[in-house]
């Protein structure tokens, strides 16, 4: 009967893995600081990732579920967060005259989106809609590796491939045709901390940042998990001992 449990476990594992497989793409795999049961976020990389998002991605991609106050997780203090927020303008209102007005963003505000709505976004991008990036690392199979591969796999199309107008060749994208133009060429920005700014380095920083936006509680979750699982293991051992103790007379009388 043990087999039964193993088989069910195998079934569980097979299901989603099979469902998610894209097929024609091999992803580059990287050892991320946040993977594994003891993983944690790399604050410096996330700060660089934020800078890259602001300077490169945010022209087209929104970050709807992230508020400026959340940036405390990246190691910024209150004054720094206020300063970052103040660089943005958000619409507020209505005021006492009934009019909407623009004001500087506050820590409680979310990152303003680059387009007023999805139609405006499509109109500005050849009909393609640049998806919101808040959850992108969870909304794709093997999200972090996928994003890293996508950002670093813009290549010259093989000779016999026809690339339609407004499409680009990307080896990591299913079907290899993507509507997003190559966003990174290397040295696209100068990092505040002077770190390397090759395509690979910026991509890795963006992944670190987007893994956090997708699940800000990840680090807390894993830390809590280590304690909870350790507690439950001890509880299992102790309750096993208690069970053996209580059953001792029954087992003895049997023999």
């Amino acid at each position, binding site marked *: *009967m043990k*087999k*039964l*449990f193993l*088989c*069910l476990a*195998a*079934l*569980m594992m*097979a*299901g*989603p893995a*099979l*469902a*998610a497989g894209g097929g024609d793409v091999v992803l580059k795999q990287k050892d991320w600081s946040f993977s594994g*049961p003891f993983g944690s976020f790399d604050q410096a990389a996330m700060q660089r990732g934020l800078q890259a998002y602001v300077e490169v991605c945010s022209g087209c991609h929104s970050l709807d*579920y992230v508020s400026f106050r*959340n940036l405390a997780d990246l190691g910024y203090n209150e004054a720094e967060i206020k300063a970052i927020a103040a660089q943005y303008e958000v619409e507020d209102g209505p005021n006492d005259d009934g009019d909407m007005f623009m004001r500087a963003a506050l820590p409680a505000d979310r990152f303003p989106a680059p387009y007023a709505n999805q139609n405006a976004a499509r109109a500005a991008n050849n009909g393609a809609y640049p*998806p919101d990036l*808040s*959850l992108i690392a*969870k*909304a*794709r*199979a093997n*999200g972090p590796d996928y994003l890293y591969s996508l950002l670093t796999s813009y290549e010259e199309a093989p000779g016999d491939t026809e690339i339609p107008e407004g499409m680009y060749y990307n080896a990591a994208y299913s079907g290899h045709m993507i509507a997003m133009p190559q966003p990174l060429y290397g040295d696209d920005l100068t990092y505040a901390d002077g770190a390397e700014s090759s395509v690979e380095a910026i991509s890795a920083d963006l992944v670190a940042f987007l893994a956090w936006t*997708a*699940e*800000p*509680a990840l680090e*807390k*979750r*894993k830390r*809590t*998990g*280590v304690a*909870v*699982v350790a507690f*439950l*293991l001890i*509880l*299992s051992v102790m*309750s*096993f001992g*208690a*069970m053996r103790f*209580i*059953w001792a007379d*029954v087992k003895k009388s049997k023999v």
Partner: protein
Amino acid sequence: MSASKFSNPVVRWIDHRLPIFSFLEHEANEYPTPKNLNYFWNFGSLAGISLVIMIVTGITLAMSYTAHVDYAFESVERIMRDVNHGWLLRYIHMNGASFFFIVVFVHIFRGLYYGSYKAPRELLWMLGVVILLLMMATAFMGYVLPWGQMSFWGATVITNLFSAIPFVGESIVTWLWGGFSVDNPTLNRFFALHYLMPFLIVGVVILHLVALHRFGSNNPLGIDTRGPQDTLPFHPYYTIKDFFGLSVFLTFLAAAVFFFPNFLGHPDNYIPANPMQTPAHIVPEWYFLPFYAILRAVPDKLGGVLAMFGAIAILFVLPWLDRSPVRSARFRPMFKIFFWILVIDCIVLGYVGAKPAEGMYLLVGRVATVWYFIHFLAILPLLSVIETPRPLPQSISTPVFGGGVGLAGAAAAPKEKV
């Protein structure tokens, strides 16, 4: 009622007027349980505890959830980000559903292996099948609530199944949706029903327990208990064993919740529902995959729906399909082999259900579907006639293979009831 068995005067006062303490004493403390239950008998109590975990996390999640197409996805993200420990509640609820099904599947296959569905426990078994059906409906509607891509398209595919009903199918689907497509009215009613149905499950679970306590648990030998020498009081022997089982179960659940919370989910459900864009592959949650495979194995839509529901309906009549008087597979050499083939068959169905319905997968799915029904409709009735069971032991407390005694007593196997 011997009210005097309680020394505490308050308890005695209450029990004299409302005998709840006598009831608990009788059903939990004295309740005689076969002494030879193995770990597979832990899964019943685990299923009950899973239900409680789901209800508690579900009610707390409902406090921060908004059942509206424009806010549902965002409210779930607020739970994940802004509600204190909301991420924990949601991940427990999400993974708890999968673990609930794992536990219940093991519980069901345990019943199949040890013949727990046979007389006098037919109604106990059938109530269990009702619980399974209610669980499936609840899980399906729960998966719709986050209003991600898989939520929306899963709801569309499954509700559309009812359009296969001749003549009135289309009207029924419109009625289920509350409109002409899966939309806000659908989400609202699914939330209402998703909140209601767990309490229906609680009701049926109580009936399940009443039926269980009528004759007590079956056991790995599948023979009736013959007296106090075969049984133990439920408390403390099985309370501690269930507690140990629970600790191990919670360890696995916690490992999933804290380290692989999205492993059993589908990434597409982190994309907000978009009625204009169909995902490349619409796959249900893993626990529905075997049924999904049966649905797609039949080339006709109505036929597929009937086969899928038939796969569960057939369990209702199982006690009358398997006529063998011997319960436990331990004493049924042929049944045992076919049991394991059925297990493999169900796993194959689950595997095929996750694959696109084409080519080899479709063929394998069809063979596995046919085999599933052959097992219940042909093999079990046939085995009841042609199989020679091995001799049964005289009682649970008698050494299992009592040599000549066992042979003499049980050569004609069917002697179950003394």
